[in-house]
């Protein structure tokens, strides 16, 4: 329906169709009838004929005028239909029931009544006809067979014909209107169906879109989804670049986007006038251009025109992409061939759909950027490793000379009897060898990091290798006056491993043990056991040395760190050996595990498969099954923290550390497993590594954040990848770099634990409104609240349960705040509870100083609604738990 037609209906609504539809037939009939009467009536009845002539001629107009003017045109319209019967009846009587005219009148009456009002009106109003006709017959009598003139006959026919034509036309118009209405209804119906269908499939697209971190896939899914419903063959995405103050065309897809290179470097300055894109961002609402005419291209803004020329479309719809109330860009749809017609409702639906996608699009973009950044970082890392490799080669060459010449000089000094020089020459050698070891360690590490370290697998006898190592290390063990025990079966059989690397790792553990133990025992136990997870060899090196705290163990496998900085000074060593040894074992699909207690010695266990396969290190969850058997244990009712890290040692450390903090810890060795556990267990917080084999941490993070159910779980990144910006952009709550900073990690995670049992905040306040306001604010922060209306009630509550903190009003009935404060401070068990004074009173200097020593903060009631009051309270609480 056009707008014009709509406005007409609007006006006509006040006049009932019974008025409008009867006007035309009435005019035709009542204009012809008087002439017919004139022709039929005898000349002696002229005065009556004249009156009837005038009445008939004017009647339709008067009836129409009155009906239109009346307050209820419908009622008036039907009244005139009754009157029609009466008037036609009079005419019928006046013509003395002459057959032909009377039949005409009868026909007009009956037809009009039925057409206008159906049978109901017909039966109600038809009696007016005989009534009128009797009145007319009073004047003209009854003479049905009286002859009528030819002119009268012709006029009779004319009246019937005219009436029928008008009526038929009217019926036709009505029918057409009915059909049009029907079509309109059907269209509307279709539109509703379409949108229902769209809404239905929307969740489907949204899922598809959210589950993909790749922008191309996201974009394709969006376009495909919408293409099913709307005639779009072009879709564009622009991203706001705040630094440039412009919208940058990111990509254009669809059947009509045939020349993507044309979109490169296309930008729309945000301040550009007349730009549909700029307007869309400024107004934050969809801009719909139903038809872009060739002539209107001239008037486009320069940027819009450039975009249009890159891919001309005849209709376009531009919508803003809004994430967290920020316009991050635009998404535009177009059709290159025919204009599309979108109803307001359809645009709303698309808008709604797009709003759900905005976050996914942003995440996918960030992910893409992250991938790029990662690739670059990796390249940089490889370059670094290459540099290190080259450099250590360059460093090693002069070292050879230093060591070699000092050895030579030592030999010569011996030969020539210059014994004074020998100790110093030995010192040069020792220092030289230490330096060389460091250099070699760095080279090893850089090879490991650059993934250039290769395994050389060969089959050999376990016992032979062990015996070889034992004989090498024996003098070393004896150095510190240690006893050496070796426990090994003769039937350990063959192994297929990188023997050099295994030997190096074992030697490293044994030499460390000898270094850190004096006058003690060192024990090597070699075992082989077949488990479900395979055929394993273990080499356990135990000592009765100084041992380590857990804190020290966490740092153990970090390059360049020994358990304690002072140990380096005391015992020497590079701190690289253990890291490298562990990498070697991990490359072979095994690991090195540590058990230790300060003062009680340590046990380092090498655990490797007896038969190592190539790419062993890439096997997923390689030793997760063994190291973490109790990690998914029964819930203890404590808040759960999920640790996602591919490094078993980190998982182990985190587990121990967080359990001490009162968390229930679940661990996952990879992204997929982590996501599954997050869904199943709904942890209060997640710690997440970035570099993992199956799915990297960025991807895990963006999946977590795009899952409605999981998006609220705080994620703490814990990684060697130093890219805070990326982490925060993808929605991480905190970003920590490895090695684990124990105190920071626990401090952060404590925040997510929620209040301890009995960690309530007690509000002591007689004003209920203030209590309610505080309670709501505290509850919103997840804090538990206890309430007391005066000092006495507060004391009762205090005796039952010690709150973590007290919010205290000063002026209260029964026992006021000052009094209560005195009591609280006199009690040993309560005096540590921090008290925040909430007061409406202006405190005197004297009161302030009296309070200052005993309360942690004073807040005036007029500041209560400000959120920093709650922040202050939270801060106090967290200091308390810290």
């Amino acid at each position, binding site marked *: 329906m056009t707008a014009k037609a709509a406005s007409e209906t609007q006006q006509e609504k006040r006049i009932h169709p019974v008025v409008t539809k009867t006007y035309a037939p009435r005019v035709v009939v009542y204009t012809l009838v008087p002439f017919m009467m004139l022709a039929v009536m005898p000349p002696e009845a002229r005065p009556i004929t004249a009156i009837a002539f005038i009445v008939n001629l004017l009647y339709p107009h008067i009836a129409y005028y009155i009906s239109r003017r009346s307050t209820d045109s419908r009622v008036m319209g039907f009244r005139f239909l009754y009157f029609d019967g009466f008037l036609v009846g009079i005419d019928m009587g006046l013509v003395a029931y002459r057959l032909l005219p009377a039949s005409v009148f009868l026909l007009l009456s009956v037809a009009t009544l039925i057409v206008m009002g159906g049978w109901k009106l017909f039966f109600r109003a038809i009696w007016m006809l005989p009534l009128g006709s009797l009145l007319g017959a009073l004047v003209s009598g009854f003479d049905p067979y009286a002859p009528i003139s030819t002119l009268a006959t012709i006029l009779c026919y004319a009246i019937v014909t005219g009436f029928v034509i008008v009526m038929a036309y009217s019926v036709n118009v009505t029918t057409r209107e009915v059909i049009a209405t029907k079509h309109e209804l059907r269209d509307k119906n279709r539109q509703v169906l379409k949108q229902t269908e769209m809404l239905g499939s929307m969740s489907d697209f949204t899922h598809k879109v959210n589950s993909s971190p790749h922008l191309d896939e996201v974009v394709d899914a969006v376009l495909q989804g919408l293409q099913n419903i709307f005639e779009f063959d072009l879709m564009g995405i622009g991203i706001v670049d705040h630094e440039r103050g412009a919208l940058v065309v990111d990509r254009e897809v669809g059947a009509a986007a045939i020349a993507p290179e044309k979109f490169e470097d296309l930008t729309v300055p945000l301040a550009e006038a007349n730009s549909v894109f700029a307007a869309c961002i400024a107004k934050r609402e969809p801009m719909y251009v139903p038809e872009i005419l060739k002539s209107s291209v001239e008037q486009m803004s320069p940027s819009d025109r450039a975009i249009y020329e890159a891919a001309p479309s005849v209709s376009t719809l531009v919508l803003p992409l809004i994430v967290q109330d920020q316009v991050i860009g635009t998404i535009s749809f177009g059709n290159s061939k025919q204009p599309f017609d979108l109803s307001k409702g359809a645009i709303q639906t698309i808008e709604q759909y797009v709003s759900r996608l905005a976050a996914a699009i942003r995440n996918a973009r960030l992910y893409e950027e992250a991938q790029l950044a990662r690739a670059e970082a990796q390249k940089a890392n490889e370059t670094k490793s290459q540099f290190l490799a080259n450099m*250590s*080669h360059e460093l*090693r*060459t*002069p*070292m*050879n*000379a230093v*060591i*070699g*010449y000092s*050895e*030579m000089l030592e*030999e010569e000094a011996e030969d020539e009897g210059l014994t004074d020089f020998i100790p110093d020459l030995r010192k040069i050698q020792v220092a030289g060898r230490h330096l*060389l*070891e460091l250099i*070699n360690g760095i*080279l090893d590490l850089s*090879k490991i990091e650059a993934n250039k370290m*290769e*395994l*050389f697998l060969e089959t050999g006898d376990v016992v032979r290798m062990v015996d*070889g190592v034992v004989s*090498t290390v024996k003098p070393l063990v004896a150095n510190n006056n240690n006893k050496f025990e070796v426990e090994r079966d003769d039937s350990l059989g063959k192994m297929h491993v*990188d*023997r*050099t*690397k295994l*030997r*190096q790792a074992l*030697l*490293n553990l044994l*030499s*460390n043990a000898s*270094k850190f133990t004096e006058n003690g025992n060192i024990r090597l136990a070699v075992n082989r056991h077949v488990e479900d997870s395979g055929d394993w060899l273990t080499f356990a090196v135990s000592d009765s040395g100084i041992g380590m705290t857990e804190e020290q163990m966490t740092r153990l496998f970090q390059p360049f760190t020994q358990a304690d900085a002072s140990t380096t000074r005391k015992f020497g*060593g*590079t701190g690289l*050996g253990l890291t490298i040894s562990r990498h070697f074992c991990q490359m072979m699909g095994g690991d090195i595990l540590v058990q230790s207690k300060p003062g009680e010695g340590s046990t380092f266990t090498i655990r490797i498969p007896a038969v190592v396969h190539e790419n062993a290190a890439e096997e997923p969850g390689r030793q997760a099954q063994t190291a973490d058997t109790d990690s998914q244990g029964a819930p203890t009712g404590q808040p759960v923290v999920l640790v996602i890290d591919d490094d078993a040692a980190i998982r182990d450390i985190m587990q121990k550390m967080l359990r001490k903090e009162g968390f229930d810890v679940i661990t996952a060795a990879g992204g997929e497993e982590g996501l599954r556990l997050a869904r199943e267990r709904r942890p209060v917080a997640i710690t997440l590594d970035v570099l993992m084999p199956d799915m990297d941490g960025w991807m895990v993070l963006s999946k977590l954040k795009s899952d409605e159910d999981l998006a609220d779980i705080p994620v703490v990144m814990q990684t060697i990848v130093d890219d805070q910006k990326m982490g925060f952009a993808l929605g991480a709550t905190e970003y920590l770099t490895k090695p684990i900073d124990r105190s920071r990690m626990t401090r952060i995670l404590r925040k997510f634990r929620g209040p301890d049992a009995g960690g309530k905040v007690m509000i002591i306040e007689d004003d209920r409104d203030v209590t309610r306001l505080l309670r709501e604010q505290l509850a919103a922060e997840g804090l538990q609240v206890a309430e007391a209306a005066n000092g006495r009630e507060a004391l009762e509550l205090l005796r039952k349960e010690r709150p973590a903190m007290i919010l205290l009003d000063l002026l209260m009935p029964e026992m006021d705040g000052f009094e209560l404060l005195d009591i609280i401070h006199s009690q040993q068990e309560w005096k540590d509870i921090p008290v925040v004074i909430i007061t409406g009173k202006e405190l005197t200097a004297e009161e302030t100083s009296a309070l200052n020593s005993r309360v942690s903060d004073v807040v005036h009631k007029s500041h209560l609604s400000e959120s920093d009051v709650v922040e202050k309270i939270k801060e106090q609480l967290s200091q308390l738990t810290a």
Partner: protein
Amino acid sequence: MSKILLIEDNEMNRDMLSRRLQKKGFEVIVAADGERGLRMAHDDEPDLILMDISLPGKDGYACARALKASQLSHIPIIALTAHAMVGDREKTLEAGCDEYDTKPVELPRLLQKMEKLLNGAIAEPAASAGVSQSE
């Protein structure tokens, strides 16, 4: 007295090792690169060749292959490489070297290997080559 050919590009290493070997009673001739080394091997027919692997121009692998393909294939070769890596050892043995040792040279160990080869003993796989790398 055994004649040893030392092929080593680094002057200090060359000087140091040749002097130490001379002190141990060997006759040592030196070459600073592969080409010269090969020429001297042909001219002087040493009893044993000590050869650095990373040489300018023709590297140690190529020299070893050339020597083992010539009529001098009976002369034992000990390869000296900078840092003991698994692949290096394999590559030197593949190229035809009879033994392998790492730099910096631990003289007693090297002497042991040299004696073995000079006395015609069959080369044992250089199993203990990596041992000294640990802490």
